[in-house]
């Protein structure tokens, strides 16, 4: 369990209240300190706080929760789960998916419930510091752009990739998101300070990795009978790998150029093996920096602050956590 309602918020509020008290008690003194205070807060923005990191995660959870929630039920997050600081946006283009494989239906339901819970727990921990849901575009237009960026052949579907049209399309769309969520939490882990937050983030990371494992193993197994399904997943991985650049850094967070892998079989030390787990050769799952995650969410190699699934950008008080990297 995570600490109770809004305790990060409470901590920040106590400090603010304390400051306000002294401002009121010693107004004359504070006037002179104003400039100093402002410059100190401005410079503090370069290092992300735990609140910044959790809000970064919350943006991603809004995206995933809305996608899965619409896909399984045709309805999105409740209105009271969308409010917060900065600009609130709406979801466009999402709808209920046409699913028929009982296993895929189960996965979708369970993942949807988990993602909705993730939004709720992050909002609870952040309290009034939680950012609002930004505008989210889950239309076939954006997914088609992603599919085209991945060089997936769309001739058979009239040049359109509709993530809600079938089990396989739904899985591919989920695949696009899932490994990104995992790598985002993995890359963020060493940036967090508070032990309780580290603990909760490990629980979130683990849940995303279960989800990714479900989606990837489903694509792997269905790929036995469905031509090119595994290859399509491979292409999405290649596209993500291309979008997020090829820089290396020891970190933390550690960054490796080749940080994505498809699901097609590989030759392991024991022979032909699945590739359900995208790892770096040491059996460790990859991580991504905040900027790299935005490159994929915005579907761009450029340094921008909006695009793709977030047409108005993600919300964050720390501007450095709203932008993609220049790759």
């Amino acid at each position, binding site marked *: 369990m995570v600490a109770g309602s809004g305790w990060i918020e409470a901590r920040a509020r106590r400090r603010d209240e*304390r400051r306000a008290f002294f401002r009121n008690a010693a107004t004359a*003194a504070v006037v002179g*300190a104003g400039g100093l205070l402002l410059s100190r807060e401005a410079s503090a923005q370069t290092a992300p706080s735990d609140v910044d990191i959790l809000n970064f995660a919350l943006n991603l959870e809004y995206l995933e929760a809305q996608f899965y929630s619409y896909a399984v039920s045709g309805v999105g997050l409740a209105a009271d789960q969308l409010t917060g600081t900065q600009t609130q946006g709406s979801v466009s283009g999402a709808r209920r998916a046409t699913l028929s494989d009982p296993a895929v239906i189960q996965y979708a339901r369970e993942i949807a419930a988990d993602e909705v819970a993730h939004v709720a727990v992050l909002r609870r921990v952040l309290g009034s510091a939680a950012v609002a849901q930004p505008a989210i575009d889950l239309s076939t237009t954006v997914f088609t752009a992603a599919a085209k960026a991945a060089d997936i052949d769309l001739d058979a579907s009239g040049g359109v990739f509709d993530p809600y049209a079938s089990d396989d399309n739904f899985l591919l769309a989920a695949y696009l998101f899932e490994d990104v969520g995992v790598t985002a939490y993995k*890359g963020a882990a060493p940036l967090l300070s508070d032990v309780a937050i580290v603990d909760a983030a*490990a629980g*979130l990371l683990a849940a995303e990795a279960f989800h990714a*494992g*479900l989606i990837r193993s489903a694509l792997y197994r269905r790929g036995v009978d469905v031509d090119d399904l595994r290859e399509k997943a491979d292409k999405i991985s290649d596209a993500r790998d291309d979008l997020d650049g090829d820089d290396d850094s020891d970190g*933390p967070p550690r960054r490796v150029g080749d940080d994505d892998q498809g699901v097609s079989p590989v030759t392991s030390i024991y022979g032909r*093996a699945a590739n359900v787990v995208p790892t770096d050769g040491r059996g460790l799952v990859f991580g991504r920096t905040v900027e790299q995650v935005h490159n994929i969410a915005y579907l761009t190699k450029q340094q921008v602050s909006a695009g793709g699934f977030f047409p108005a950008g993600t919300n964050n008080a720390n501007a450095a956590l709203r932008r993609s990297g220049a790759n």
Partner: protein
Amino acid sequence: MNGPIEFLDLMERAEQQRQARRRFIRLCGGAAAMTGGLALLSGCGDDNDDGSPTPSPSPTPSGAITDVAVLNFALQLEYLEGAYYAYAVSGSGVDGALLSGMGTQGAVVTGSGAGAARAVDFSDDVVAEYAREIAADEIGHIRFLRETLGSARVAQPAINISGSASVDVAGTTTVGAFTAAARAAGVIGAGDIFDPYASDENFLIGAYLLTDVGVSAYRGAAKLLTNKTYLEASAGILAAECYHDATIRAELWRRGLTVPSVYTRVSQISALRDSLDGAGDTDQDIGNAATANLVPTDSDGLVLGRSAAQVLNVVFQNGAAVTGGGFFPTGLNGTILTSGAGG
């Protein structure tokens, strides 16, 4: 005069600096372990809240679980998983060069006859391909942790991965650990054996016995690690274990559609683990055909964790505070040794 606010900010900064200093000290211990140079530790010294210098080096401060202890604990769980998957996919264990280290090195107890550890004759190619991938990942984890720990790494202790009715561990006769676990869970009768190497389904159930434990162990250990490089690496391993577990749980659920007894057996194993490790919900089964439960989470959608002592309850197959049994018949090496008393 801006005294009050300056003062409060200074107080905050002092607190931050104190915490940073303590983190640095902990990192010192970690760096020493990485290079294997215990001498480095003497340069780090001890750290007290009051900041008073302590002359004697203290590699394992009392009351605190060091990063080295946590990583060595994890390494031994990887030895166990590595041995199981390596035997299942190849009929032999992990490369002997990867088993040495501090403490007492033990053998892998394979058993003989029915239930002996051996290569599984997989009938489903996909399950075989999953198994090979997991085996390779676990060996990657062993290599990574050993390299990270350097000379501080512990040896593989004795590991019982047998399903045989009777095995010999250092001159003592006991039961194959998989059979012992399956009997305790009620998956099989008291006189039966459970052979995890006999079929795809049995292999998956054997994997279920181990993989959930690995996930909950790394999940629970995250908050104990102070070195951020270790924390990130551990997060990478935690994630890999979760991908594995999802794959195993999903395969078991799919099989349950045609063999409903799978749901019962998995449920019995989860119930056993949950009872061994004391109060609180640390384990969840995979649900049933109507409603799957493939991700073991709390109501916040967070995956469940176990403390190190709870993990030991499960792998020792004992609800009491003991120092060995089950999959680790002679216990562990290192400093995290005793299971919890709460089961």
